[in-house]
Every structure is written in structure tokens, then in C-alpha cells.
């Protein structure tokens, strides 16, 4: 990935440095650093991980072990819209699986994956904490409650 300048005027590496600094260069804050980097860049690009390893003076494999252990991290670019479909117990007993299957069919991908045009990423998650409203689908942070397979196409239309 070429080093480019962000809208804020900082290069990507400078932005990462800023994040690391906000965590006081602490190795123990690795998870928080990766979370912030992912929030900024939408995924964890390899060159940035290398940079973090250098800055914190820890082996790159330690970063990879953390980045691959926790579900929250993704090493592949994500789509413009991240769709999280809940398969927590409450959503499961109300038919969450059928919703996920319908999403997969409409998008032509299997969860967790991203469409080729980088528009949609689909992931099945375990409980989004809105269990009373299940089945729940969250798109880029917006909640959609009581979803049935039939409502899926209507939701996708809202995110073009």
C-alpha cells in the first residue's frame, strides 16, 4: 500500500503514530491501538501493522496473533457498508438464520466476506445487545429491528 496523505493532512503513518501516542506507547494497549487503527482505516493493513510493531518494539507475529484471535479485527479490506446480522440466541430462535441466508443469497457471498465491488461486507455476529428486537441487522451502526427474509431486499436498497 502506498503511503498517502489523509484528509486531515497527516500521512497514514503519522496518523498511526498519533493513535499510538494517545495510548502512551504502551504495549499493553495493543488491542486498543488496533481498534483505533481499524476504526480509522476500516481494516488492518499489513504495512501499518509492521509500523506498529516497529514503534512498540515488539515482534510482528505478536501483533498478528492478537489481530487474528479477536473477532473484531479484520485483515482484509471491508466494503463501504458492513452488514452485521445477529445470530445470538434470541435472534436465532426468531429465525435469524433465515435472514442471514437471505442476505447471503442476495449479495452472492457467504458470511464473513465482502462483495467484489467492495460495497458490502457481511458478517454473522453473536448478539448485538438488542435481543428484544430480534432478528436484528445492523448496517454501519444503524439498527434494523424485527427483520424477516422478506424485509431484506428493502434494507439493502437503503444502502446503495
Amino acid at each position, binding site marked *: 500500500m502506498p503511503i498517502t496523505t489523509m484528509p486531515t493532512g497527516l500521512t497514514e503513518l503519522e496518523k498511526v503514530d498519533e493513535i499510538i501516542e494517545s495510548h502512551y506507547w504502551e504495549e499493553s494497549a495493543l488491542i486498543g491501538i488496533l481498534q483505533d487503527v481499524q476504526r480509522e482505516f476500516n481494516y488492518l493493513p499489513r504495512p501499518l501493522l509492521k509500523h506498529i510493531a516497529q514503534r512498540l518494539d515488539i515482534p510482528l507475529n505478536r501483533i498478528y496473533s492478537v489481530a487474528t484471535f479477536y473477532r473484531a479485527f479484520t485483515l482484509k479490506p471491508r466494503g463501504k457498508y458492513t452488514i452485521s446480522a445477529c445470530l445470538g440466541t434470541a435472534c436465532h430462535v426468531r429465525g435469524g438464520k433465515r435472514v442471514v441466508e437471505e442476505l447471503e443469497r442476495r449479495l452472492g457471498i457467504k458470511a464473513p466476506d465482502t462483495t467484489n465491488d467492495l460495497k458490502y461486507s457481511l458478517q454473522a455476529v453473536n448478539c448485538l445487545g438488542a435481543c428484544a428486537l430480534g432478528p436484528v441487522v445492523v448496517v454501519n451502526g444503524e439498527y434494523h429491528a424485527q427483520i424477516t*427474509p422478506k424485509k431484506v431486499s428493502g434494507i439493502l436498497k437503503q444502502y446503495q
Partner: protein
Amino acid sequence: MRQVNNVAAFQSWQDELMKSRNPNARIIIISSGTCGIANGSKFIIEALTEQIRKHNLDSQVSLRVTGCLSFCQIEPLIEIQPESILYTGVKPEDVPEIMEQTIKNKKIIERLLYIDPVTGKKVTYADEIPFYNKQSRIISGDNLKIDPTKIEDYISIGGYSALAKALSTMKPEAIIDMIKKSGLRGRGGGGFPAGVKWESCHKAHGDLKYVICNADEGDPGAYANRGLLEGNPHSVLEGMIIGAYAIGSNIGYIYIRDEYPLAVELFENAIKQAEECGLLGRNILGSGFNFVMNINRGGGAFVCGESSALMASLEGKIGEPRAKYIHMVERGLYDRPSCLNNVETWANIPLILNKDVDWFTKIGTGDVTNNPWGGSKGTKIFSLVGKVNNTGLVEVPMGITLREIVYGIGGGIRGNKRFKAVQTGGPSGGCIPDKLLDLQVDYDRLTEAGSMMGSGGMIVMDEYGCMVDVACYFLNFLREESCGKCVPCREGIERMWEILNDICEGRGQKGNIELLMELSEMVKDSALCQLGATAPNPVLTTLKYFYDEYEAHIKEEKCPAGVCKALIHYTIDEVSCKGCGACVKSCPGEAISGEKKKPHKIDQERCIKCGVCIDTCKFESVKIIPGRHPSVKKELVNV
């Protein structure tokens, strides 16, 4: 914001704030936790603010945006004080009418009232609704009274007075003794007595000690902790400061799941405010006691709810548990004495200090006078979800029966279906059948029934819930969430899941059940942490209470509940089908055909059993029939 650096200054500030609360004031309360926002509360708030400005009603009515008010299903909901008029499913368009009718003319708008699913009658006031009045909302009830972003609101209802009392009049040992006597047991998992844990941590040697709040709430289907963090973050924070003082700790952590961004934001704000007022940080209320709080966001791993894995994660490592022969209270985070409690456990602390032990021990079961394990005291917040009429967070006294929760508070099963089971304790828990509906809900009774209290998930299933599917669901969950450190869990759960998955997909064989039992025993006895050791519970309880269903799947090749796709088929009822063609258009597999106005038919080989036709049909003519269709060969069944 006021700064208070001694107890007297705090108390006079609190008196002022308490006096400023007018019980007769006209206040519109709007519930705006994550569920509220999901249902559009933000738009209602906008509309309300605009209407108040437009009609110049600033002096007559005020708006209070609160966290979750527990009845998540009927949101967006607003409650109008002082009468406690409850409006449900409010839309922004309704707001002008609410202003005109209810606020100005004191008239009730019938259309927005809650309809009791049991009696079918409309109910006007919140305290007349069984969902609310059958609960004991000693902890969650405060959510209604405060805006979680304002520390003044919390102080005005008596908040932080327990801390002031502890710091100015109580020795650490006295606080620990009080918590021990109260019989408060951990609300996050196994129900370990909090006072006993505090005492060990207090006595442990170490220059630095930590108190930690477990807000990982990984149990899918449970969200009670989120409700508290969003609705009343200061109560959790106050509990932690008191705990830290009792234990002798100056540093605290809260580990919040990443899926709860609003809770993180509100807790951050609470910490900032408490620091600014002098209730957190250096020399709290002039007592010489220092305490700082840190927030860590979880990484989305269920195992990180386990105490040793959580501490590893706090250290920035992968969340692998360690064997328990070294206790966390002696060597936990960074190998120092650490006391971990759940969100709800911490929220109980100020209450016990304010109300006293006798008051607390009157609620609940058993006798804890000489033995903190002797009973279950206080209340527990459950997330009552699934196929009940009223879904939401319910706070009930320990010892209440399941029947009272499901039928009394929950209003029974949706759509007049039959109750089949309630799943408690999450992936470590089990399914409790109807014959145990009169079971008293407390730590020990739930464990005896083969389940667990866990962190308070209560998922109700009706006759259309398949118990084999549920067991398979949990094992799949645990298989994915097992950290892989120990073999019994990593391999054992995988094998158990394979068998269950085979059964659900129509490949069940004789001997499967016996093998499942054997594997269950092995995993239970030899897994490193409680994730593995409790993993067989969903299988064991369903085998114990719903053996027939396993047999039906294996021997009769049928899923009686109509869930497992390989063991069911769809048909269209010829009598009720009007031939409207709606299903034909919606079917993604082009499997339905028929002439207009004549009953339609499903091509069994093309049908993928997605269920879209069931959602589409207005006449309920599409039926699920247990068992494969006789015309479809076993190998060709769409799964």
C-alpha cells in the same frame, strides 16, 4: 460542575440537588438506550424539542432523555410525569398531538396506549402494566429517574451518598463484612459470594491491587449489563469506588464489549464527571483515598468474559484462560491481586450500603446469616426474550418462579402457542422444560435443574423451537469461541458439534446419543476453564428433558418442531390457498407454480426452504410438515 473536596460539601450539594427535584413537575421521559435509538428515539427527541420551543412551553414541561427503560419491545416509548402516562410505539408525527392533547389539554391519546396481550385492554399508566408492576425494580428502576449523562441527576436521587458514608464513617473491614452478610453473590457467572472474594483480595499481599468490572456480556441473548451501563453508569462506578476502598486498590478497569459503543461513551462521560467533581481521582472527598478508572474495549471473543482470559486481554494479550490453581484475587492482572465482578454485582453495592443488610436479605431465598452460600439474596435482572409477548429486561427477586416470569411478567407465549422451554445461562446453561415452570429461580435451583444463572439471559421457546437445533446452535457457538488452548475443549466440542450437526442435517445414526453423552462427560471433567467444562450443559439438559426429539430426528428422520431443514418439507394447503400468486413472485428458487385463483404447488426438488413464502402468504396457507417429502431422495434434500 461543582467541585466537592469534603463530605460536608458533598452533602450540602446533594441536599440542594434533592430539593430541586419537584415530584409534581411535568416531564416527558423518553427511553433512548440502544434499543430506543434502534427504534427511532432520536427523531422523537428532535420533534419534542422542536415542539416545546415552538409552543414556548419551556417553563411548563421539560424533557428527560434516559437510558433503557427495559420494555424494549414497545419502543420508542415515552412516559409523561407526574401521572406516569405511558405511550408506546411513538412516531415523530405523533409528537404535535401529544403536545396539544396531553401536555396542554391533559387528554389521553388512546391510540398510543399499551395493549395488554393477556386481557386485550388498553392501559394508561406505567405502574398498571403487569410487565412493570410485577417486577422489583430496585436497581433498574432508577433508570427512569435520571439522564445518564448528568451526574447531578444521579446525585439528586441519593447517588454517591453510599460512597460518602463509606469513606467518612466505615473501615474497609466493616464494608467487606457488610457485603458478606448481605449474601450478595456474583451476577455474572457462577454466583461466588462477592464479600468472600473481596475479603481474600483485601488480605492478599501486594503493593498494587486492581478492581475490575466485567462488562463483556458475551452470553448471546443477554443484555442486562448494557441496560445498566447505558441507564445508570454512575451506580456501577460508585460500587467500584467503594469496592476499591474496601479492598485497598487504587486502580480500576472496566472491560466493555466493543459491540456496546453507547455504553462505552456514557461510561467515559461518567468517569470524566466524577473526576471533575472530586468523586474520583486523588484524595476523594478529602479522605486521602485515591482511585483512577480505565476503560478497555473488548475484542469480541466470548472467552474473554472468563476471569483469567479477561485479565490477559487487559494486558494486551490474546484471551487465553489459565488454570485456576492460582487465584485471581492473589495473582490476577499483571500478577497482582485483582478483584473482578460483574456490572450488576457492582451496581448492587451502593444499594446495600444505603439500605442496610437486613433490608437486602429480606429479598430472596435461603439463609445467609452464617454462610454466604446459604441462599440467593436480592434481585436479578434477566433479559426476557424469544417467543414471549413482552420482551425486555426484567428485574425480579431471587426465588420467583419461572412461571411468574414467563406468564406474569412476560404475558405468556406469542401468538397463543404452547410453551416448550426456557434457556437460561447462555452457552453454559441449559433448557428448562414446562414441567419445571414452578421452579424457583435462584443460583442453586437452576444448577440443580442442569442449567445456570449465568449472566441473565432467559430465552423462551415455543413449540416451534427445536431442542436438537438449540443444542447444535450452542455447540457451534462454543466451537467457534473455544480459544483452542486445551484439547478437550478444542477437539471435544468440535466432535460433539459434528454429531449434532449430522443429526440436524438428517445423517443421524444409532449410537450417536450414547457417544454424545460419553464425550460430554469427558469434556466436562477435563477442560481447562469453565467455557469447556460447562459446554456440554446445553446437550445434557436437552437430552435429559427432550430425549424424544433426538429420537425423532434419528429414528423417524423428522424434526417435530419443523426447524431442521433436512427433516421437513413445505407444502401449500389446498383449502386455504386463494391462488393469489404472491408466493410465486417472492420465491427465490422459482419453486412455486399454479394457475391464478387455484391452489398453488411447491416443486419439492427446487424448494430451498428459505421461508420467504411463509412471510409473504396472507392466508397462512404455506405449512411446514415434519419429515422429508416422500418424493425427494435423502441425498437430494436441500439443506
